[in-house]
């Protein structure tokens, strides 16, 4: 067998094993809307932890983080900071969100806005913002999967067919199962990922430099400026770091799918305890960063930094191990992609189509429409995956710039009753418009600050002014 055939068949075997596990878990339960979206609200500490870990540690952290460490250097450290602080934020907002979700049997994020603000236009707007900004996040997973197929095939499979394979894998996986499958497959994926990260991190540093310490000694001698901010960039300094960490950690649990996955918990105490222990899951992340940093010495000159980790693995290890890394990476992409598609499809069917077009359809019809929407949403993401050239980190930051604009609405919805739906809606529109204008006009960062953060500030300012003046 050729090296590429070995690597690809190992990847394929892992993906099939993972999907079989998922289908098995899904098949044991009758799939109504409640079961499909929130798994009957019966997950305890371990399952919620797995589900949340499953969506926090994605292709983004494996390929994207090492990619930015390789191509941008120091600014990539924002990822370590935000992966800590988003759990701190979750400690305060998820338990009350869960409380309200259970009291009113809410299934989606837009349900929350509908219930709290009693405004269909706000709920529809929230659902649309959710769907639109899930697309770059979904595209990120497809791009990641495509990169894995591309590198593991030793470039025999080109970019477009690689993305098509990724798309077929993800869509069929979601179609057959629901959120329960996602939690189960996370077990396999997390174990594999842990093994991969530990092995790659320690072996790469030992083989090329003789250990972790000597790796950094070599880096400090060769490229010291790469390891601090702004690294290889000119405009990602400390102001950018603070604004980006704030934007992403506040928004981390405002994603429709992350907020929605808290609904699966058995109690609010589960969520609090989960928030306490979650930061520990990230202790292996610095190894991924080290591989990315070391890449500038081991495999210099890559045009696309997101390829760095896999290129180093391919250069260092046997095709068999490349296959295991690729398989773990493929599952890390498929699990969150499934959740993202599932959430976006349900949001569209339940919170956009039903209130606007067909208020009388039953839950069962909503579930059927949601299943059909899975394909539509996956195709849109596939289109962007094939035709865009953004880095994985840039895609996630784009998503955050939009999603975090929902943060004020969630927080005021939880802890205050003075803020009206029109006030929140105006803030949301101002925030999204600002972020979109700056990013599409290539003015990100703007004045050294993250564009999404500027949007969030104007969003809050709008809410504050309208609330004080009592205009609406």
């Amino acid at each position: 067998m050729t090296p590429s055939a070995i690597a690809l068949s190992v990847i394929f075997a892992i993906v099939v094993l993972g999907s079989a596990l998922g289908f098995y878990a899904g098949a044991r339960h009758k799939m109504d809307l409640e079961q499909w979206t929130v798994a009957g609200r019966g997950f305890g500490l371990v399952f919620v932890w797995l589900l949340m870990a499953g969506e926090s540690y994605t292709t983004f952290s494996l390929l994207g983080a090492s990619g930015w460490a390789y191509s941008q250097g120091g600014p990539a450290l924002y990822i370590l900071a935000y992966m800590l602080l988003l759990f701190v934020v979750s400690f305060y907002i998820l338990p009350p969100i869960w409380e309200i979700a259970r009291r009113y049997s809410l299934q989606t994020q837009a349900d929350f806005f509908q219930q709290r603000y009693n405004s269909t236009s706000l709920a529809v707007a929230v659902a649309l913002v959710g769907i639109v900004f899930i697309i770059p996040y979904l595209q990120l997973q497809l791009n990641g999967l495509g990169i894995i197929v591309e590198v593991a095939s030793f470039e025999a499979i080109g970019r477009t067919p690689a993305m098509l394979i990724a798309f077929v894998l993800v869509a069929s996986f979601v179609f057959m199962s629901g959120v329960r499958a996602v939690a189960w497959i996370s077990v396999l994926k997390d174990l594999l990922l842990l093994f991969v990260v530990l092995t790659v991190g320690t072996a790469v540093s030992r083989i090329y430099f003789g250990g972790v310490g000597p790796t950094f000694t070599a880096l400090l001698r060769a490229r010291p400026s790469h390891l601090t901010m702004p690294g290889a960039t000119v405009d990602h300094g400390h102001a950018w770091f603070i604004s980006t960490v704030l934007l992403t950690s506040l928004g981390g649990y405002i994603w429709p799918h992350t907020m929605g996955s808290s609904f699966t918990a058995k109690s609010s105490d589960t969520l609090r305890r989960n928030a306490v222990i979650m930061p520990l899951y990230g202790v292996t992340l610095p190894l991924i960063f080290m591989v990315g940093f070391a890449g500038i010495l081991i495999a210099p000159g890559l045009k696309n930094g997101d390829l760095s980790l896999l290129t180093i693995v391919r250069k260092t290890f046997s095709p068999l191990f490349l296959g295991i890394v690729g398989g773990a990476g493929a599952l890390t992409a498929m699990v969150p992609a499934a959740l993202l598609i599932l959430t976006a499809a349900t949001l569209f069917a339940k919170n956009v189509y039903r209130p606007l077009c067909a208020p009388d359809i039953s839950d069962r019809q909503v579930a059927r429409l949601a299943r059909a929407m899975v394909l539509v949403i996956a195709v849109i993401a596939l289109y962007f995956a094939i035709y865009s050239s953004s880095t994985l980190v840039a895609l996630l930051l784009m998503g955050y710039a939009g999603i975090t604009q929902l943060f004020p609405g969630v927080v005021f919805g939880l802890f205050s009753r003075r803020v009206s739906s029109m006030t929140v809606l105006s803030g949301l529109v101002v925030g999204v418009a600002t972020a979109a204008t700056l990013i599409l006009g290539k003015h990100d960062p703007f004045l050294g600050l993250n564009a999404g953060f500027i949007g969030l500030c104007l969003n809050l300012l709008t809410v504050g002014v309208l609330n004080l003046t009592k205009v609406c």
Partner: protein
Amino acid sequence: MKISIRDPVARPSPGALLFGLIPFVSVCFSVAWWDRLYPVVLGLPFNLFWLILWMLLTPLCMWGAYRQEQTRSKRDHRSRNRA
């Protein structure tokens, strides 16, 4: 289904919020202080070492916050029972 939530849920206690502020100050606002390469600690550049250190310290802070919330909910529970 058209009832909006009249009572907002209980806000986090100030004590618990203070515990959560510690990691924010340590890894976000103070970046200009810790984003440097020396001293090298355990073979790691200082900025990387500092972030890893806080991965271990943050759960301790949040455990403190958890204790704060727990004592409060117990107190609320007791006063409700008495009433």
